[in-house]
């Protein structure tokens, strides 16, 4: 592999460029009109303009990206996260053009992208899945029947839903019957598809995921877990590793299940198996992300491994350079996502950054994609930086995280830094006792 085109933008494009540079691999950036002046465009060895700001016309424009790869002679494409990273057709097209796709096979992307197929494969492989119906329910009576079988509470979900829209918790049959009609109407209005699912609702759950890596020679290993329960609007805000909630026995079982999941689909590349874990430490498969994740630096700082380097080696056909026994917890790591958003309502806040000064501290890594004067546009994700902090203990990491956030200056746009500081001072967070309900429970408490 001599030259990698990065089909992405912002901080993740910079992150990939960094490892490529250190390994002597040339890079090609692609950019939209809106991103012309961002650091990633400058830092790549070459940069190709691919269109106007809306993603369908640039970062999702397969022809423009393939064209850029061909015109620059790139022999591999790294899709980053989001955008085309889990697009089966794109991965296949890249391969058909004789270019290496840095990620798993198109078949695996397709299988894991379909929630029902993924669920069936995992069940067959002996990985626990959340109890629920296998196919959409057609009537309210059918929904009630499924709920009675798996037991209340249940989650009623629009199959086309996402981002928290189109789902409701039902604690008894009466509320299920009420919710069914209104949710179905909403699903039709929002998504044009009113297929509904019923699944067991896990009370006060933890969102814990396991990083895995598999090579083309059948070797699979796990790189331990990340605790991702601090979320707003079902999107992660803070991740840490190791999880303060897991005990060694559960950790071992969870990580083994993730390896089983990867083996079941012949996974190649780095990926993540997401689980929901209840208060009694029962865990269930949620989904598999067939790409590098936003929160991958948590694992890197904890283990000292470079996940992008592993991706390049695997895509090159090399065997994994380490064994399971080499994966060790070197330190505790926390990632904070700095978003351009209102710290109270969490609503997006596009605008121009007039001052951007990240903290320069030991044990603090900054993965960002902006600078002074950057226009944060409404076209892309609100994340502007990730701050990854490590310490020999969790307490030390939390203390350093607080100091780092106090020293992070951004003006011109609203950011969630005040919110992150509140999380880092919250008693339950400091004790490591929190679930995915953390943000809502905090809001309810401050309203009383």
């Amino acid at each position: 592999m001599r030259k990698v085109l990065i089909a992405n933008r912002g901080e993740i494009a910079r992150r990939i460029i960094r490892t490529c540079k250190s390994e002597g691999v040339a890079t090609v950036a692609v950019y939209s009109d809106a991103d012309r002046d961002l650091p990633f465009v400058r830092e790549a060895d070459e940069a190709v303009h691919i269109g106007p700001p809306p993603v369908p016309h640039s970062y999702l424009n397969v022809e423009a990206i393939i064209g850029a790869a061909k015109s620059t002679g790139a022999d591999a494409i790294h899709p980053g996260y989001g955008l085309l990273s889990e697009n089966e057709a794109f991965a296949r097209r890249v391969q058909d053009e004789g270019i290496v796709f840095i990620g798993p096979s198109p078949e695996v992307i397709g299988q894991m992208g379909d929630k029902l197929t993924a669920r069936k494969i995992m069940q067959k492989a002996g990985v626990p899945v959340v109890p629920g119906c296998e196919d959409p329910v057609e009537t309210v009576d059918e929904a009630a029947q499924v709920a009675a079988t798996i037991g209340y509470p249940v989650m009623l979900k629009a199959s086309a839903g996402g981002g928290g829209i189109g789902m409701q918790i039902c604690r008894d049959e009466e509320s299920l019957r009420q919710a069914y009609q209104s949710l179905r109407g909403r699903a039709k209005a929002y998504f044009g598809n009113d297929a509904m699912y019923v699944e067991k609702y896990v009370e006060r759950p933890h969102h814990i995921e396991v990083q895995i890596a598999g090579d083309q020679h059948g070797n699979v290993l796990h790189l331990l877990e990340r605790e991702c329960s601090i979320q707003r609007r079902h999107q992660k805000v803070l991740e840490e590793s190791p999880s303060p909630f897991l005990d060694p026995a559960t950790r071992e079982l969870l990580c083994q299940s993730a390896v089983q999941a990867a083996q079941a689909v012949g996974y190649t590349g780095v990926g993540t198996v997401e689980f929901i874990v209840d208060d009694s430490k029962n865990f269930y498969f949620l989904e598999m992300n067939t790409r590098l994740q936003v929160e991958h630096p948590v694992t890197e700082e904890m283990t000292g491994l470079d996940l992008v380097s592993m991706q390049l080696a695997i895509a090159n056909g090399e065997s994994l350079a380490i064994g399971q026994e080499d994966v060790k917890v070197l330190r505790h790591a926390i990632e904070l996502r700095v978003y351009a958003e209102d710290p109270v309502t969490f609503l997006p806040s596009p605008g121009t950054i007039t001052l951007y000064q990240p903290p320069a501290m030991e044990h603090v890594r900054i993965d960002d994609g902006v600078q002074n004067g950057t226009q944060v546009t409404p076209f892309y994700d609100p994340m502007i930086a990730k701050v990854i902090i490590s310490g020999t203990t969790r307490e030390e990491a939390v203390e350093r995280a607080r100091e780092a956030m106090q020293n992070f200056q951004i003006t011109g746009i609203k950011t969630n830094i005040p919110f992150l500081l509140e999380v880092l001072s919250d008693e339950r967070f400091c004790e490591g006792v929190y679930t995915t309900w953390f943000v809502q429970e905090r809001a309810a408490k401050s309203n009383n």
Partner: protein
Amino acid sequence: MKQIAANMAGTVINVLVQLGDEVSEGQDILVLESMKMEVPIQSEVVGKVIEIKANIGDFVNDGDVLVVVE
């Protein structure tokens, strides 16, 4: 008469009401999208939709009036 305004800058991706529709308080009437986040805009009052000022695909700013309810 109540003017329902945008609470963030973004693109209108769905209009869930039509002129003359009766709406209830808290009912979703429009969906905005910004920075990959979908935010439903709700009616703050009970009433009849007498004006829709935004169409699917329009970019609106924080504070722009989207729908008027009487």
